[in-house]
Every structure is written in structure tokens, then in C-alpha cells.
């Protein structure tokens, strides 16, 4: 009789149940681990970073606003007068402004960290922002003229 009783209990709280719970827990864990990739969460994040990098890059290659902006009057940062020619004076203004990183971020209207690098061959002409490592990084690159020299303007936008 005792034997029958213990078998009756084991039928409900038995191996079946434990196995089912374990399988379910594994399925749940896997779902949340890979849900991001199922819904392309990384792709969405990367697209957001691409937009921010492109926005900074295209903004920099404008005269900015107002046209002759300085640190106190600037509402849109731009360091070029005609789209590709870097204006050295505006570049200096921008570098001075970029020491206030949070304000620069606000002026660029971005939420992610950025790093801007202007270089000619391997010589760094100017850099601004925060250079760091991240899982997701988007880059926008433009070829520009700085003092009549072909240079490369790179804007990096970092994910969290």
C-alpha cells in the first residue's frame, strides 16, 4: 500500500514535470538570449548609430548656423564654407567648443558618444569627442580639403 501511494505522488511531481520545467526554462533563456537577433535589435541600434554619424558628418561639412558662428552664438556646428573645404578658423572654433563634450553632443543632437578625426595620410590634424571601444560602432567618412590638402574626415558613433 505504501508503495502504491508513493507511485501516485510521483506521477504528478515526477521526472516528467521536472524535465518539462527544465526544457521550458532552457527555451525561455534561449529566447531572451537570442530574441535580440531574431528581431534584429543590433541592426536597429546600428542603424541609429549610422544616422547619428551621418548627421554629424553632413552637419560639419556646412558653414554651420549662424554662418559666422562662434562659441557663444552657435546653434549648428559646421566647419566648411562650401561643402568640402575645411575653414581653419571654424575648425579652431569647433575644437575649442568640443572641450565641452556634453554641449557639443547637444548641438549635434545626438544621444550616443562620438569621435571625430580629421587626418591627412597618417597625420592627425584634429580630433574631438571620445574615442572608446564598443560592440557597435558606425562610421561616416568624407574626403575633404584642408589647406588645399586632401584629408579624411571620419565620424565614429559608439553604441553602449
Amino acid at each position, binding site marked *: *500500500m505504501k508503495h502504491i*501511494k508513493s507511485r*501516485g*505522488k510521483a*506521477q*504528478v*511531481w515526477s521526472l516528467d*514535470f521536472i524535465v518539462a520545467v527544465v526544457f*521550458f526554462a532552457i527555451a*525561455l533563456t534561449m*529566447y*531572451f538570449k537570442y*530574441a535580440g537577433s531574431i*528581431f534584429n*535589435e543590433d541592426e*536597429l*541600434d546600428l*542603424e*541609429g548609430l549610422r*544616422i*547619428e554619424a*551621418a*548627421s554629424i558628418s*553632413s*552637419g560639419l*561639412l*556646412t*558653414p*554651420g*548656423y549662424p*554662418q559666422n558662428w562662434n562659441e557663444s552664438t552657435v*546653434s*549648428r556646428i*559646421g566647419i*566648411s*564654407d*562650401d*561643402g568640402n573645404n575645411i575653414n581653419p578658423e571654424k575648425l579652431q572654433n569647433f575644437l575649442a567648443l568640443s572641450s565641452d563634450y556634453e554641449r557639443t553632443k547637444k*548641438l*549635434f*543632437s545626438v544621444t550616443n558618444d562620438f569621435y571625430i578625426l580629421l587626418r591627412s595620410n597618417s597625420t592627425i590634424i584634429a580630433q574631438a569627442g571620445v574615442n572608446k571601444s564598443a560592440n557597435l560602432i558606425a562610421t561616416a567618412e568624407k574626403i575633404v580639403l584642408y589647406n588645399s590638402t586632401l584629408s579624411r574626415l571620419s565620424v565614429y558613433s559608439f553604441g553602449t
Partner: protein
Amino acid sequence: MKMKAINKQFSRRAQLSVEFVIFIAMGLLIMVSFLYLVNEKESQLRDKRQLLLLKDLAYKIQSELDTASIVEDGYSRNFTLPISLEGLDYDVIITNGYLAVFSEKFDVYSSVPLNDSILIDPNINPNVTIMRENGTICLNRPSCP
């Protein structure tokens, strides 16, 4: 002896029934929790997607205005905004050098090289005309002031 056996049988049946109900209840509870979490995750991703669509639109308008800021006077360009962003209604406001694209849930801001003030409701008029005259950029006007 017979009575005792019947009692035991009833007792075991009742126990099995309660355990079965508990088991089903737990199963349902786990399933409901799972569905809730899945729904939360999907809602979070939907929000992220909507925010991205607004950001993308703000960037496109910003690029149009950036282009207008580096060209010569006499520049004019028309473009049409989408009526909605994958079903998401939005409005665009430009004022004091800032562009805001906002929907019911999110707002996206960016700076633009423009001092004009304008509200664009794509449901009313999705067409936008950018003009540049006398070094000034203006939107949806017969001529720049």
C-alpha cells in the same frame, strides 16, 4: 477494513485532483508570464523602431537644409514627406534653428541652419519647398523674406 480502503481511495483521488489543478495553474502562470515578457520585448523593439523612423526622417530633412546652406542663392527644391511612417502619424516643427519631429509617443530634435518657423502636418500638406534667396533659407514660402 472496507471503509478504510474506500477512504484511502478517496483521499488519493482528491490529492491527485488538487495536484493536477496546481500543475495546470503553474503551467498557465508560466505561460502567461512568458507571453507577457514576449509582449514587453516586442513593444520595446517596436518603440525602438518608431524612434529610428523619426530620427531617420529628421536626418533626411536636416540633410535637405544642409544642402541648401552650401549652395548659391536661387536654389529651390521640392520634396514630399511620407504621410505616415509605417502607420505612425507625426508632425514636423521648425523653429529658432531647431527641427522637431514628433509623434504621439516620441520627439526627435536636431539643429538646422534655418531661422524660419513652420509647422508641417503631412496629412494636410506633405509637400515641402526649400528655397534659398539672399543667403536665407526658407520653407514653403513664395519668396524668402
